[in-house]
């Protein structure tokens, strides 16, 4: 693709450099701060608490058989119709057990459609501090976590990190954003409070976000 023509680029950079020559009296850089966030002693407990705050569901399971049963339970409440699933061997095994009758659209067949009733994906990590899941383009694509009314995430406790700083450091260290054009920290279901500050769940994205969290690998 042709390189973008940028007639004003150098002028803007020159204006910036000229402006920065002005000496600004600043309070000295301290570089050290008090402890901004309280330490997280029990990440699992904190994650569960934050899920409640974020109005998302977190279901603990002991093993993959229990996870399959939970998937089945969640899917019972999802209206009939296609379910989009990230094409991953672990999810293939689970979905075959949990919803053998459901029409499935695998991510290898394309993006979720408007008709998808639910999406099932993995996550890169879970963040205890904010009750969040971290997904990337590798987790079924960009639309997988936002197009359908229900998003179900399958994760294990080993993926839990204590806080945002740890999660972001890991993303930077592993070059996650060099391998994925997209990443998102999702902290609850889609929502709005644009009318009289009254909270409404399910604005443009999922009304339900369910995390099936398995305590063993």
């Amino acid at each position, binding site marked *: 693709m042709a390189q973008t023509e940028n007639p*004003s680029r150098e002028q803007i950079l020159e204006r910036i450099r000229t402006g920065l020559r002005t000496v*600004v009296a600043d309070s000295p850089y301290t570089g050290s701060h008090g402890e901004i966030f309280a330490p997280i002693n029990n990440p699992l407990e904190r994650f569960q608490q934050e899920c409640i705050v974020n109005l998302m569901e977190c279901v603990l399971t002991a093993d993959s058989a229990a996870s399959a049963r939970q998937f089945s339970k969640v899917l019972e409440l999802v209206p009939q119709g296609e379910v989009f699933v990230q094409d991953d061997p672990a999810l293939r095994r689970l979905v075959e057990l949990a919803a053998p009758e459901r029409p499935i659209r695998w991510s290898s067949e394309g993006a979720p459609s408007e008709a998808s009733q639910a999406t099932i994906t993995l996550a890169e990590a879970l963040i205890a501090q904010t009750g969040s899941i971290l997904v990337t383009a590798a987790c079924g694509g960009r639309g997988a976590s936002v197009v359908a009314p229900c998003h179900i995430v399958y994760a294990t406790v080993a993926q839990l990190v204590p806080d945002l700083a740890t999660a972001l450091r890991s993303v930077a260290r592993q070059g996650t954003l060099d391998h994925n*054009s997209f990443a998102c920290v999702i902290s609850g279901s889609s929502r709005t409070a*644009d009318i*009289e500050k009254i909270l*409404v769940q399910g604005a443009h994205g999922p009304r339900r976000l369910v995390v099936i969290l398995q305590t063993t690998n």
Partner: protein
Amino acid sequence: MTASAAQRFLQDAAVKSADLVHREIIRLGMDSYDAAHLKGRARIKDWEAARQKCQEIKREAINHLDRYLLQFEEKVIARGGHVFWASNGDEACEYVKNLATRRGVRTVVKSKSMVTEEIHLGPVLEKVGIKVWETDFGEYIVQLRDEPPYHIVTPAMHLNRGQIAELFREKLDPGIVSDDPADLMAAARRKLRQAFFTAEMGISGANFLVADPGVVAISTNEGNGRLCTSIPRIHVVVTGIEKVIPRLEDLAVLWPVLATSGTGQGITTYSTLIGGPRRAGEVDGPEEFHVVLVDNGRSQLLADAEQREVLHCIRCGACLNICPVFRHVGGHTYGTTYPGPIGSVLTPHLGGIKEFKHLSYASSLCGACTSVCPVKIDLHHHLLQNRRNATEAGATKSSERMMFRAWRSAMLQPWVYALGGWSMRKVLRVIYGMGLAGTFLDPMRVWNRHRTPVPLPSESFRARWRKSLGTN
């Protein structure tokens, strides 16, 4: 120009502050925000340390703005994205318009972006026949009303559910009966879903440009930003050059602080990072990714030793929410893209001190804005500096300059001051005695028009002072 913008402000402020329905809507909205904000702050162990950290991150970014912007640009281009540098709004709009025209774009979905409001991108695209859908629920509501956003975070906070239901009945579906916010949102969702799946281009803003990995960070609660940046085949980010931050890890404090200051949440529901177009092997995502970096007067602020820090603003809206003037006159009265204290500081730099100097006086200088700013911008002192700058630039009216000369003269000659006070008491006594307080004959009419006159003292302060010295 100066008089008309200032006069419009005064006229609109008088109307809005006397509108009891408007005041009640804003009071309820702000009460709800106040409670959520306090609760959110309590979740952060040391709020002041968080503010300090955010201030330092933004200061480092702005003080090395050229370096970080180039670092960001390099990474985006390496992933197949495009970066366009726009000196002003016209250049930015031209770029997006030409891109849309070349690619045969008929429909655009937009997520909330104050910079696109600042440069009036929507009308430019509509002029060439492109349908533009605002997809943030609040933005969609104000778009249907053909008015600008009222607030930078909650664009439709000046409307209640009844007014929105009526609007939807008129513009979307006469069959809408309920005014329940969930039902109204569902009606908008149904309409906007069609737009998401037919649009060829999605336009978003950016909360941050992260230099080190070269990604844009976008925070939304509704998921509309996610859909705008996932489904259409072209994604264009339009943002200000000051949004850059150095490192990904900086978001570990900026994201929670932005959410807490904006809505009281611990973190925004969707905190998204996008670094380019869809990569080979990815399931979906746009084929093209463009970032338009808008200067539009921002680089001039770098040379302002006192006010460079205004570029640290993360557009959380906290200063608007706490401002007693904003709470009474409302967002539209300012007549600017950015209302409230940050808008009153910034707009004279972007739009001209002559036309917008009056905004510096839309403040009680109480300092509440400064006290809540999550990046510690000294907002109320910047308002004072703008007043001074306007005077030094000769942007004040000759009558105002004359009044101050007379005042100065009186302050330097006590007998003139005393004579003035004595005369005023006599004149006001006659006017009040005749029941003419607040009429055009009353020199105090601006105050007395809406208030009971303050009782006149029988003697001057100096006379009372002398008496008091005599008795002690």
